[in-house]
């Protein structure tokens, strides 16, 4: 997995899967993006990305329990694999490294 490339949206989804933990499924992720990032996102885009990440071995999934609000349909719950976690961590460190190159005139967030 030396040169695994991850797109911006992929990274976003991966991070959210890691963050939402036991509640990481399609609709919840989409909602999270909308509420937190104020960004309009289509469910289908979320699903396709989830599948792509799964194909890359960064996340894995199991079918969860059924809920009433979904008309008895089960959720597919995603969790980050250790490879996915390692990649997230590596990307974060790389970002930080790059960030350190930027002259620290003004701090915007951390």
């Amino acid at each position: 997995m030396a040169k695994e490339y991850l797109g911006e949206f992929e990274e976003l989804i991966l991070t959210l899967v890691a963050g939402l933990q036991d509640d990481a499924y399609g609709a919840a992720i989409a909602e999270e993006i909308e509420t937190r990032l104020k960004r309009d996102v289509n469910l289908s885009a979320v699903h396709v990305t989830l599948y792509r990440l799964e194909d890359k071995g960064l996340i894995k999934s199991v079918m969860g329990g059924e809920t009433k609000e979904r008309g008895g349909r089960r959720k597919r719950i995603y969790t980050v694999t250790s490879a996915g976690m390692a990649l997230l961590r590596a990307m974060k460190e790389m970002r930080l490294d790059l960030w350190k190159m930027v002259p620290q005139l003004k701090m915007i967030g951390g």
Partner: protein
Amino acid sequence: MANMPNSAPPRLVLRFLQFVCPPQLLEEIEGDLVQRFAKDVTLLGARRARLRFAWNVIRYVRPSILFRRHASTVRRRNLMLANTIKLTGRQWIRNKTFSTVNVLGLTLGLAVCLLVAQFVLFEKSFDRYSPHADRTYRVNLYNTENGVFDKISPATVSGLGYELRNQLAAVEDVARVGSKTGGVVANPLKGREDLENQIVYADASVAHVLGLTFVNGQSPKTFADTHSIFISTALAEKYFDRRDVTGEMLAIGFNNGSALPEDYHVAGVFEDMPPNTHLRFDMILPPPNEQAWNENWSWGDVSTYVLLQPEANATALAPAFAEMVKQHHHSNTGDRYLLEPIASIRLQALDGSGRGGLINFFMVLAAIVLLLAWFNFVNLSTARFFERLKEVGVRKLIGAGRFQLMMQFLVEAFIFNLVSGGLALMLFVLCWPSLAAYFGQPATITLWQDGNILYGVGFVLVGTLCTGFYPALFLSSFTPLLSLQGKIGSFADRTVLRKVLVAVQLSVSVALLTGVMAVRQQVDFMRSQNLGIALDQTLIVESPLLTDNTTANHYEPFRQALLKMPGVEHVTYASSFAGEEIDWHRTDITLGAADAGYRYGSRIVGIGTEFLEAFDLPLLAGRNFDATNPRDTKTMLISEAALKMFGFETPAQALGQNVFVGSRQFEVIGVVRNYHFRALQTAIQPLLYIQGYPRNPRYAIKLSGGNMQATVAAIGSVWKTTYAGNVFKYYFLDDFFDRQYAADQQVGTLVTALSLLAAFISCIGLFGLTLYAVHRRTKEIGIRKVMGATVSQVMMLLSREFMMLAGVGMILPLPFLYYAVNQWLTRYAYRITPGPVLFILPLAAILLLAFITMSFQTVVAARRNPVDSMKHE
């Protein structure tokens, strides 16, 4: 709220999603969409929510959703597995000989199993092509003579089938098939003509009962007249170059009293019968005399097939059969009719011709070879443990658990088996065509299509697991510290299992080799026996097929013309010759007067007056037939065996006695010395000779050497002019006679091949065991040599234990072997007495082989410089 009726997502859109979305993804996507919709309803209202829902669904129409085949992929990179595979490769390369012999043994064992499986599969697939094969039966006659059991035979009379069909409700249909006949078939339009032998007289219902399919989809229920026929697609293609030739005409000449062919009308074309059927024919004719065919209880040699109603039970016919015996069998009240399912004819025919025994024998042999190969695998794997002692120790110290180590060895075993399996498959595919040709089976491999193959695969997998498991358990058991020091734990030192395995292997090899010797000795014995008749340089010419009442007159000019040729010594005819079953078999022969009490059974041949001279058959008493004496058609020669049967003390006593065959009276004028008219599997049976031109004679031409080919060609041209329109077909009698041993020779070849394999595999096992022993005693050998031991002494030291082991392993099964060989020999009327050589020679051969195998390593070990040996750790 969300529970309001109008807040349900639109049905149509959902249906659309269900249509486009791969089913394994549907539940998740649908769920998320519905959840989203429920939220939208509360935020935006039902109408807009529905619109959004539709839009969201449409967005799913994209290739990465539509063409996604799987719900989730988990790509596990199993590092340990990769590592293990790498290690196995390294092991392989480091021990090239070791791995190669190991794989070789397994490959051979598995390949043999595959070959035998395919062979058995074909044998077991017989007569199952009919859609109702499970309720189709063949009628057998349990025949008694004078109240004593005679034989079970599938040859029944034609009247039986007619009565069965008309009288029994349990019977759905009946088909009677007469014996095979030959005919010269011609399609004058295409100018094609050939002799066909696969022609039967049968009921039209045979198509239904045996499940034949007709090319035009219709299966005719009856023959329109005596000149309509059904032919196979093979014949259709041969004579017309196309398949559906219904309605065409063929000119066919039969042996039915007319020398001219007649026109027959093709009333139906049936698909060729598959090769795996006990009964094959290419043409079906209606019986020439319908009334006699239906009502005659003496029209013999007819096979009767019964198709029962779906619910009917085969035993339901028993009372009806008993009634028929009462009505039609006169004094033979002990007769019975038995039904046998057609699917069991090939393997367990009631008349004893089934091949089931042979099949089981092959399967057992194949299983033995595979077992030996597996024994070997266990032996070789555990014998290597010295080399792997340190490896295991280091691994354990680094932190490998026992489970991990076991997994490693199991994977190694699995890979070995996998490679062997692959090679075995290749070997199987390569070898099958030639083996199939040898056994007369089709070359196509049907093994993969059979469901039972799964059992086979399961069996091999379980075997693999078992063979892999013991070495894994064994090798992973070393305690790290001891193994690093080169000390062996107590568990590891147990070689009992290996010794037992090798002993079993060797004893099996000896047993198989003894079998080979026994078969060879018996066949050689039978072939070297004096048959009592001179069969060499005898040409047998088949009788002309197209005959009429003048055909018999052609014989004398034919004979005279041949006798003028330089290479021809004698010309004679007979109804049958040595080497085949004499089908003229009467069981109503009486002595003294017709119907005089005890009825004898005997075979009868019709012969020409030159017969005895041509075949060097001496008379023990009396005289030969005299061609010039017209009274001699009422006389008879009897064989020695017949003399004994009739109860005469000396040949002279029989002369002048009257023998009645049915109502015909014959005076005995001579006694002929016995000869073997069948192979030596069977005892010599009584035989009566009568003179006269029989219905279907064949001609025997005794040649005097010289240029055989030219003589045969010359005879052929005389034949062409004498019997115009008939095909000149001939064979050499001695070859023909020897063909009776073909089955025994086939079995012999097979057992030879398998036993050589077994011996080879056993030697591999021994090789491994010696390797182990030599390794263990390297230092000891060094010290002994320093102290002055010679090479031969060291070799003795190393071999002694194994030679003793081998000896014990081979001598123990001897009593069983002796019994088995004798049991097998009881099948033969004339047999060898198994002597000590038969048992000692294979034993000695295997011992020698074992010794040679061991010497490969003992010699090297014994000759090694003691300095090197002492350094060995």
